[in-house]
């Protein structure tokens, strides 16, 4: 088969370039936007993604990890009764007020009380064992390197959380929070810092490690039933992380913004791409009409146009991928939070190819002018 669509695209590339660029930029814009939003809002679930737990147990209906309420510590027994559960660990999350030595005023901080054992589940990915061990000292806390200035304190310095003295024993990275500053302490220290008497000795969450992480969903379902230990709900780490990110994305309106911009990008891209393809078809309308006179069906000619749209989409995406990869690497090197997952990438690809397909369908319409009778003049 003579590859008419491809050869025309290569030979008359100047004619198709605007369409390729439109698809490419539409794809790139979507990709970067998705990566930024996922990067920024992904830090909402840093407690989950930075930890090695397979299951999270918290107050029923909790929409985001920062909205947890204390649960009955005896739920731990219920969890340990299940043979699939290997380890359970409490996690205390509390909202607190920080006063540093410098003139930083009050800073809203989120205290994470964790089990500082070397093989503890919480923040297993963010805190190396040596650093965790330092949390065993009374009133010791660890903060993210990037938050040091904000907190007005250095390593070894002291500050006050909810009016109680704490000492910064180390810094880590990958602990940055959304809408505040994360401070990590041991469970004991966190209990001392908790100013709310109603919390008692209760953890905000219980996190569990399973013998077979692949069974997480089934085990979570199994553990959900039964209210003998008071109200609690069980999520897999993945679903709780997604829940938290989604909550932030839609709570702040960022999700709606992403969808709105996706619509605009799609519309603008489709207008440019379809106009370019329409012009390209119109430029070859006499040749198409001749083929139709020779008996090549209109349906076959439509396929040629659609194939052209497909290649325009594919080339645009290729450009977007190369450029996007470069820009994401640049962003990473500058500590800009960018994250790309498979779902977002596929959504961007579908959007760009959908844009090309819609434009191809629009361009097909101009084949109607390819009436061979008009050639006999």
């Amino acid at each position, binding site marked *: 088969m003579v590859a008419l669509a491809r050869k025309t695209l290569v030979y008359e590339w100047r004619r198709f370039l605007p369409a390729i660029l439109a698809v490419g930029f539409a794809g790139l814009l979507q990709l970067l936007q998705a990566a930024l939003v996922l990067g920024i809002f992904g830090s909402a679930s840093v407690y989950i993604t930075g930890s090695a737990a397979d299951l999270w147990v918290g107050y029923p209906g909790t929409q985001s990890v920062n909205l947890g309420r204390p649960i009955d510590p005896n739920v731990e027994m219920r969890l340990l009764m299940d043979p699939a559960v290997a380890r359970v660990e409490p996690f205390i999350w509390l909202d607190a007020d920080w006063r540093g030595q410098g003139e930083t005023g009050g800073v809203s901080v989120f205290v994470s009380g964790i089990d500082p054992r070397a093989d503890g589940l919480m923040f297993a990915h963010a805190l190396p064992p040596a650093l965790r061990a330092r949390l065993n000292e009374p009133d010791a806390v660890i903060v993210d390197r990037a938050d040091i200035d904000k907190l007005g304190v250095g390593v070894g310095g002291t500050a006050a959380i909810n009016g109680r003295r704490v000492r910064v024993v180390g810094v880590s990275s990958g602990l940055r929070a959304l809408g505040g500053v994360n401070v990590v302490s041991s469970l004991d220290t966190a209990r001392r810092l908790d100013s709310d008497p109603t919390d008692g000795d209760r953890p905000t969450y219980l996190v569990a490690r399973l013998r077979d992480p692949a069974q997480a969903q089934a085990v979570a379902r199994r553990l959900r039933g039964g209210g003998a230990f008071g109200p609690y709900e069980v999520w897999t780490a993945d679903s709780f992380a997604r829940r938290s990110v989604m909550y932030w994305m839609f709570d702040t309106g960022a999700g709606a913004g992403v969808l709105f911009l996706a619509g605009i990008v799609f519309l603008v891209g489709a207008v440019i791409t379809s106009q370019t393809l329409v012009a390209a078809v119109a430029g070859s309308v006499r040749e198409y009409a001749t*083929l139709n006179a020779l008996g090549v069906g209109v349906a076959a000619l439509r396929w040629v146009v659609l194939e052209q749209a497909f290649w325009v989409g594919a080339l645009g995406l290729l450009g977007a991928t190369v450029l996007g990869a470069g820009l994401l690497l640049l962003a990473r090197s500058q500590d800009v939070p960018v994250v790309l997952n498979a779902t977002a990438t596929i959504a961007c690809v579908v959007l760009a190819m959908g844009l090309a397909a819609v434009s191809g369908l629009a361009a097909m319409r101009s084949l109607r002018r390819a009436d061979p009778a008009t050639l*006999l003049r």
Partner: protein
Amino acid sequence: MNAPTPAAPILYAEGIGKAFVSGRVRTQVLDGLSLGIGPGELTLISGPSGCGKSTLLAILSGLQRVDSGRVFALGSELGLLDGHALERFRLRHTGFVFQGFNLFPALSALEQVELPLHYLGLPREQARARAAQSLDEVGLAHRMRLRPAELSGGEKQRVAIARALAKQPELLFADEPTSALDAANGQTVIDILHRIARSHGTTVLCVSHDPRLIGHADRVLAMEDGRILSDRRAAPPAATIEGTPP
């Protein structure tokens, strides 16, 4: 159905009428015209512009439908075929050469000729071989790797003829095939069309006001105002069947 008998014309129009409406003005281009074209002949329709000769060609070739009357081509009544069947009829049986060459700028001469053959369902090698053979027949064997931009006007028209010829059609329609060409190239194209009718037994129907073509045609129809004014035959037609209108 009273389809033409084998001895009768291969292409046959019976009382055809066609009008075009532009705004409120209705122009009757053809009115009750009947005509038969014999097989293996080079028939020339000539006449001033606007006399309806291009419309007649469009109707006889199945590119346009009639308002009244009937058209038979190779035993099929074209008016009874739907759009899809008409496309298939043209694919299998007809070739076209237009005044403009209408070649795809991106394709080489060989690919231009090969392209329609794929839609005929020919396998790749066979399509390529047939395309090369057609280009050889129009004297372009040495230029078949070139794109239209690298070919002269006469060469482009020869590629267009090869494209029509490679399908091995029974009917070949040509609309002013020489009017965009200089004398020498025009003559070459005329010779090729003549040879196609002779050696392939193809029925060639040509619309032109080029007087050079008259000497090469087996039959010349002069048209004016939608009617055929005269119907002349060239000296003894060697092996043509009489194609007299009924």
